[in-house]
């Protein structure tokens, strides 16, 4: 072989190997573009857009969970659509319209099941994570006439369980799917009026539902289910006039820093600080508007807060040691969601009315990149695959 032939052969081999080079998914994520029903696949190492994925239906209030190998995203759309997206190819690999109106979902501890919480018809449906075939149907029946309640706050819990709340019924249900086709349901009744969202603590122990219809939060200790659901912060706000609520707060992503949890107050311009040993309120921080997301940076050192209409052009950063507001940002109108990179060096923020996703360096709090997106809402990175409750 002549030297030039050898070089050509080597070059070709390198090129082919380059084409076939495997790509990992650990720095990938998706941005939901709710108006156009599309997702934008992004990577967080260089902050770039990789691909737009279309055809996902109505994605208002859409959320995403990931398979345990971080290869697939499961997208829960408002129109009841459940879509499985391959993060490497950027293609839809399975899709089903599983209800008329849904609000979110969760993936089981072992990654084999995907559950969806539905408004219409009210209940939870459980699907095979591989094929999206229906495995179990759990109607959220309540009352003497067997009405169906809207279901909110669906999360995964250790022990192959799903936990969720019934908005209309005021109940919390724990569904054990160790035998997927025979879910074992434990019902907790009279937990409070109108649970609107819920979270599970990162250790998977405490399930906490926010109540819209009355003050306080309903908490279930999954290590001690025999103790039932108890009310925490029930004194909060008593006798005070609530402000009208223009957007329901989200409890997902609440911040735990040291012994304290930071949660949004409903109908008030306040973030509440709770001692997670005693579950008593220790302080409140006055903030710019009604908080929607109160997101803790992964190291817990600071908390980023966005607000409901008409204050949704502002983001504030709370220092979790001084418990003071450290900074106020004005990213533009319609800040809908924020997501930290897994170790917290960057924060991605969707600004709906500016059609942009802004990326901030969390140390300097300066914008380091911005990416165009069509009415962006939720941002979900693959690292969620390995976190309980996300």
């Amino acid at each position, binding site marked *: 072989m002549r030297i030039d032939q050898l070089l050509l052969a080597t070059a070709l081999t390198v090129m082919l190997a380059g084409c076939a080079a495997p790509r990992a998914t650990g720095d990938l994520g998706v941005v939901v573009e*709710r*108006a156009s029903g599309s997702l934008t696949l992004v990577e967080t190492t260089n902050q770039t857009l990789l691909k737009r994925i279309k055809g996902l239906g*109505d994605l*208002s*209030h859409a959320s995403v969970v990931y398979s345990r190998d971080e290869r697939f995203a499961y997208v829960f759309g*408002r*129109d009841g659509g459940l879509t499985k997206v391959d993060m490497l190819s950027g293609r839809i690999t399975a899709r089903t319209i599983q209800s008329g*109106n849904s*609000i979110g979902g969760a993936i089981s501890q072992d990654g084999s099941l995907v559950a969806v919480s539905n*408004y*219409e018809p009210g209940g939870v449906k459980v699907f095979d994570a591989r094929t999206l075939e229906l495995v179990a149907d759990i109607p959220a029946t309540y009352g003497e006439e067997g009405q169906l309640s*809207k279901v*909110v706050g669906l999360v995964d819990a250790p022990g192959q369980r799903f936990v969720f709340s019934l*908005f209309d019924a005021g109940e919390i249900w724990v569904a054990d799917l160790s035998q997927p086709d025979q879910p074992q349901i434990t019902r907790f009744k009279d937990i409070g009026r*109108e649970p*609107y969202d819920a979270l599970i603590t990162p250790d998977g122990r405490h399930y906490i539902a926010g109540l*819209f219809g009355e003050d306080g939060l309903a908490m279930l200790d999954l290590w001690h289910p025999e103790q039932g659901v108890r009310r925490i912060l029930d004194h909060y706000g008593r006798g005070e006039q609530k402000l*009208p*609520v*223009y*957007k*329901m707060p989200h409890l997902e992503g609440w911040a735990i820093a040291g012994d304290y949890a930071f949660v949004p107050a409903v109908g008030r311009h306040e973030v509440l600080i709770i001692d997670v040993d005693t579950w008593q309120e220790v302080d409140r921080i006055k903030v710019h508007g009604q908080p929607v997301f109160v997101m803790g940076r992964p190291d817990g050192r600071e908390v980023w807060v966005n607000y409901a*209409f*008409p204050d949704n052009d502002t983001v504030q950063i709370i220092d979790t040691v001084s418990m003071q507001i450290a900074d106020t940002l004005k990213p533009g109108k*319609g800040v809908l969601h924020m997501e930290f990179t897994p170790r917290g060096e960057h924060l991605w923020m969707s600004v*709906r*009315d500016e059609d942009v996703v802004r990326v901030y360096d969390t140390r300097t709090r300066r914008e380091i990149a911005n990416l165009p997106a069509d*009415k962006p809402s939720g941002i979900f990175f693959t690292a969620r695959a390995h976190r309980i409750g996300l």
Partner: protein
Amino acid sequence: MRLAIAPEPGRSRWYAVAVALLFLMTASAAATEPEGDRKDELLHLLQHDCGSCHGMTLKGGLGPSLLPEQLEDKSAMMLRATILIGRAGTPMPPWQDFLSEEEADWLVGRLQEGISDAN
């Protein structure tokens, strides 16, 4: 040459009334029909802010569906009051700090006739 344009005195009075009426009609139309930019803002508000509870396509979420068939048995006055002052005992908040009565009426009209997905 004949002066053709000079109107009779009586006729000119009629003209004045007509012009005044026309002016009043346009003025009242302007009051009920928001300006173009404001219309866009209102539809944006409906889709994205009302939509956070009622769904971006208004077919319902935590709040009820606002599609025309769901609103058929409800009066425009009741819908206007719901928008402006909210509904006690439900999460529906009052919007009167952000919307005028005319704007609320205009939105009720749009809801009753149905808003195309193009918006």
